[in-house]
C-alpha cells in the first residue's frame, strides 16, 4: 500500500488544517452566539429583531450558499475598497463557519439559560444582587454544564462542515482528497478509505467522550 504511504503526510496535514479551521471558528461562533442570545432575549425590539433575522436567515440557508456569498460576493466587493488581501479561503471559511454556527449556538445558549431554575434568579434578586451579578454569578455558571453536550455535538458537526471550504479552494482534508483522486485516476478507493478513517479518528473519540459525560451529567441531575 505504497499509495497510502505516499499520500498519508499530505492527508495528515489536511486533517491538521481541518482542526485549525474548527478550533479558530468555534470560539468565535460561541462568542457571537452568546451575544446573539442576549440580543434575542432583550426587551428592546431594536435588539431582538436583528438577532431573530440573523438566526433565521443563517439557519435557513445552506452553508455552501453562505460561503459562496462571502467568498465571491463580498470578496468581489472588497476589491472595490482596496481590501482584497482579506479575500482568501481562510478568512471566508472561518467567517462563514463562525456566522453559521453562531446562529445554532444562540439557540443552545437560550435553551441553557432558560433551563436554570427561576427560583435561583428570584433568590438572587431577593438577596439584592443586580441583574448583571445575577446573570454572571448565578445563572451562567449553572447553565454551562447543561450546554456543554450540545456544544461538543456542534463541534463535531463543525469538524465535518469544514469540508465545505474545499469548494472555494481552501486547503483541507477534503481538498487533499480531491487532489489525490485527481492525480490517481484509477486507484481511488484506498484514498477515500484513508480520508474516511481520518475523519472518523477526529470525530468518533470526541463523540464517545461527549456521550460518556452526557450520561454522567444525566445521572447527576
Amino acid at each position, binding site marked *: 500500500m505504497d499509495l497510502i504511504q505516499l499520500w498519508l503526510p499530505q492527508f495528515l496535514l489536511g486533517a491538521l488544517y481541518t482542526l485549525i479551521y474548527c478550533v479558530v471558528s468555534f470560539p468565535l461562533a460561541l462568542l457571537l452566539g452568546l451575544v446573539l442570545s442576549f440580543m434575542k432575549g432583550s426587551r428592546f425590539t431594536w435588539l431582538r429583531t436583528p438577532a431573530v433575522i440573523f438566526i433565521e*436567515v443563517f439557519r435557513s*440557508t*445552506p452553508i*455552501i*450558499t453562505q460561503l459562496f456569498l462571502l467568498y465571491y460576493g463580498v470578496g*468581489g466587493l472588497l476589491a472595490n475598497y482596496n481590501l482584497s488581501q482579506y479575500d482568501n479561503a481562510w478568512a471566508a471559511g472561518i467567517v462563514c463557519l463562525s456566522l453559521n454556527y453562531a446562529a445554532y449556538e444562540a439557540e443552545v445558549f437560550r435553551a441553557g439559560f432558560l433551563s436554570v431554575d427561576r427560583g435561583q434568579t428570584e433568590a438572587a434578586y431577593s438577596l439584592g444582587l443586580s441583574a448583571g451579578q445575577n446573570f454572571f454569578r448565578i445563572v451562567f455558571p449553572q447553565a454551562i454544564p447543561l450546554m456543554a453536550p450540545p456544544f461538543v455535538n456542534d463541534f463535531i458537526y463543525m469538524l465535518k462542515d*469544514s469540508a465545505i471550504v*474545499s469548494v472555494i479552494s481552501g486547503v483541507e482534508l477534503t481538498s487533499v482528497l480531491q487532489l489525490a483522486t485527481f492525480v490517481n485516476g484509477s486507484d481511488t478507493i484506498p484514498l477515500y478509505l484513508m480520508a474516511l478513517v481520518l475523519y472518523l479518528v477526529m470525530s468518533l473519540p470526541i463523540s464517545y467522550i461527549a456521550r460518556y459525560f452526557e450520561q454522567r451529567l444525566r445521572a447527576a441531575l
Partner: protein
Amino acid sequence: MEQTIIRSEPGPKPRRWLVIFDYLFYLLLLLLAVGLIYYLYYYLSTPLVNSLTGKFAMIIWVPILLQKAGITILISLISVVLATVLGFLGALGRISRFAPLRWLTMVYVEVIRGTPILVQLLCWYFGIAQILSLTLNFDPYAALYSLMTALQSNSLVANLDQATFDAFFWGIIGLSFNYGAYLTEVFRAGILSVDKGQNEAALSLGLNARQTMNRIVLPQALRITLPPFTNYFITLVQDSALLSVLGVTELEQEISALAVTQTASNIKLFVYVLGALYYFVICFALSLLARFLEARFARAY
C-alpha cells in the same frame, strides 16, 4: 407560551429612555426598505448578456432560479423518501435480535455520521460510480433507458443527458444514504420511546410481532419521531445545495453559473443574495410548518 425575555420580574427599574430606540428602529426599517427599492430601481438596471435593456432587467433571473428551485425540491423529496426507507430499515436493524445485523447497522450509522456529506458525495460519484461502471458496466442512464424500453416508453428519457442523469442518480443515492443514517437514530429513538407495556399488552392479546409493530408501536412512535424528522428534512433541502459540486443543475449550481458571468461586483453579490433568498423562503416555510406540526402533535390524545 414562548419565553422571550431571559431576566425575570422583579428586576431593576427599566430605563425608559432606551425605549425611544424602538421607534427609531422602525423608522430605520422604513428607510432601509425605501433605500432598497431605490437601489434596485436605479443602480441595477444594466443590460444582461442577452441584451435585455431597461429598468428591472434583473427580474429575468427570478423565473430561472424558480425553475431550479423546483428541481431542488424534487431532489429533496426523492431523497427524503429513500432516506426514510433506509432509516426505517436501519432502525429495525439496530433493535434486531441478530447481533451481526445490529453490528452492521451500527457500523453504517457511525461511519456515515462521522464523515462529512461532501466527502460521501465525492466518494459516491467519483469513487463508487466509476468502479461500478468499470467492473460491472453499471450505468444509471443505460439502466433507466432499458427499464423504460421494457415499459414501452423510452421516448420520455431519450433526450436526457447521460452525464447529468448520472450526477442526479449518484447525488440522490449519496444524500439518501447520509440521511438514512441520521433517520435511523431518529426512528430508533421513536420506536424505543413507546412504552414496553404496549408491546406486552399487544402480545398478550394475541397479535403477532408484525401486527404489534404496524398497529400499536409505529403510530405512537410517530409523535416522537416527527419533530426531528422535519428538522432533518429542512437540513436535507439545504444539503441538496452540495450537489452542485457534482455538477447537478439545481439551484446552487444555477446561482454560481449566473454569478460567474457578472463582472460588476455588486451585481454578483445581488445574484448570491437573491439565490440565498430562495433557499430562505423554502426552508423558512418548512420550519414554520415543522413548528406547527410539532405543536399539533405535542397535544396527546
